[in-house]
């Protein structure tokens, strides 16, 4: 039985960050990437994290996604502190609760669109292959790539690749989808399509999105904009 079994999931669950601090050591010097971050993220949010380069946005997403551990503070989900978990538990949490969308899409080049989308479910090993196929078909259609299931990433445009990445992120119905500058490599028209797609999914499916971005368009679409400077939250606006 995995740590985060399906029946334990609650669609209304929220992430609670309390005094989250991340310190990196570079030789003698110390870099405070995050400095006492307090934040609550509710289910179904469409939240954008903004801030200048080096402000701590990526570290924030990495810690939220259990890719990195905080030096201090707590990230509480379902009554458990995620920050203090061992690597095995963090892998299980990522496998079952978190999805990522990356700036450079990061699709697996040797897998087809369908196989890339199915990958998180195959790693999760919770569903049988028929259900995995069904879910993948459904989500591929939802991102507008029906008919391109058997193509390889090299056969797709940048916008199509990012759609596949979004489908891959959505397929396992995660607690939260973390996206690190998802439109940064796209032209403005494609970026607008992708943002509209994600927002539509957020509305239709209630999926929680947390983005880091410099993109003004994304900020406009976000219902909540959290600003980070020098590792601290300096603004938290809800629209």
């Amino acid at each position: 039985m995995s740590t985060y079994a399906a029946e334990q999931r609650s669609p209304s669950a929220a992430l609670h960050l309390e005094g989250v601090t991340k310190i990196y050591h570079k030789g003698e010097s110390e870099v405070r990437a995050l400095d006492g971050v307090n934040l609550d993220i509710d289910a179904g949010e469409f939240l954008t994290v903004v801030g200048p380069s080096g402000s701590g946005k990526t570290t924030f997403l990495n810690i939220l996604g259990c890719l990195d551990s905080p030096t201090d503070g707590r990230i509480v989900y379902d009554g458990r502190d995620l920050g203090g978990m061992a690597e095995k538990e963090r892998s299980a949490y990522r496998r079952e609760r978190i999805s990522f969308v990356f700036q450079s899409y990061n699709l697996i080049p040797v897998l087809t669109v369908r196989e890339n989308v199915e990958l998180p479910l195959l790693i999760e090993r919770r569903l049988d292959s028929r259900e995995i196929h069904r879910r993948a078909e459904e989500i591929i259609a939802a991102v507008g790539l029906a008919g391109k299931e058997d193509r390889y990433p090299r056969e797709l445009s940048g916008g199509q690749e990012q759609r596949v990445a979004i489908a891959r992120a959505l397929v396992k119905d995660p607690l939260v989808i973390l996206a690190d500058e998802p439109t940064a490599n796209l032209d403005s028209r494609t970026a607008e399509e992708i943002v509209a797609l994600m927002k539509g999914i957020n509305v239709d499916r209630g999926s929680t999105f947390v983005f880091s971005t410099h993109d003004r368009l994304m900020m406009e679409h976000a219902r909540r904009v959290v600003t980070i400077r020098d590792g601290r939250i300096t603004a938290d606006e809800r629209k």
Partner: protein
Amino acid sequence: MGTLWKIALRNTARHGRRTIITAVVMMVGIGVFVSFDSVITGMDRMAIDTMADYTTSSLKIRTPAYVDDIEAAPLDKGLPSPTAALAAAASDGMRSTPRLRFVARISNYTDEIPVLADAVDPSTDGTVFKVATSVESGSWLPSAPSHEVVLGAELASELKVGVGDALLISAQTVNDVTNADEYTVAGLVTTPATEVNRGGLYMGLQDARQLLDAGTGPDGLATEIDVALPRAPSLDSALAQGDAAAARLRAALPGLRVDALRDLGASYLALRNAKASYSMVPVLIVLAISAVGIINTILMSVFSRVREIGVLRAYGMTPREIKRLFTLEGLCLGLAGSVLGVGLGALLDFLAISRGIDMRGLAGGWSLPVSGILRGEWNPRTMVIGFVFGIVVSLLAARIPARRAARLEPTDALRFQ
């Protein structure tokens, strides 16, 4: 596991050039190993067959006392009843012939050379040995006493005699007195066994018994009964067949010593084992190169896919699964190299078996009893060893880059440009 296999297989295919180079190096290593073993086994087989056909026969029945003092070829320790030994072999369906070995001195009336002569029964010797079919000039010995001898061609050349020339042969009789007589050279033999060519002196059994004052008739003196066995499909089965036949004859002939090919060719077989160890050296070198190739190929694969590793980790793949993924890629390479290697080995084996290798030009300089067309032998065990060895080397080689991939932190991997 299916997903890991899929990714591993497709990545192996995707980096075709790297995969092909590594697999080809492995193919050469395993192919050389398999075919080398085939040729070595074929050489052993040829050597053992040559021994059986021209010098030792497949089985020898002698008295224990004779074998203990074999260097002196003692006539007083010959078989008490050659006919009993011949009958025992015949009742088991084996072909056999008596021989009488004695120390002789051959003189061409100018020079004298000591040799170990073989007195043979011309009517049955050909059923066990092939010396009679190797007459280069002249003829083999007639069945009836004729005062004729057959010489190894090189010995004749050393004595400067040819067919029809007279020789004086002297020897100690069973009564320990020296006797001598004149004989005519009936024929010269050239065989794959160099010792026969260089020192072979063959005389009819009745002529020899007369020279040695060693009785007459069926139970006249014979120092050994030589036995032929049917040709077995492989060297190992030939040795096993000899052991089994020797055991049966020992039971039938208590008090006599029966030596099989394994005993008669002991010194050669010991040499064979040493050769087998040496034959592994070039193979190990090539497989070491393959291992370096695999490490390099998978390391390159790891470095070119750092971000991919980051994605897989981000989606919850554990370090152990990442390690397994790259180990599987090593296994794919190993499988490709091993399958190709065994295939190449089988092809080379086929050529070595069907066409053979002409050893005639080498025979003179070799101390091994190998001459003529050397043919390889199929050895499925070697193919299995080569295949398994290739897989094991690949798995071991893949461990290094696989561990490296597994140790990558997902955040570092995702940042990698």
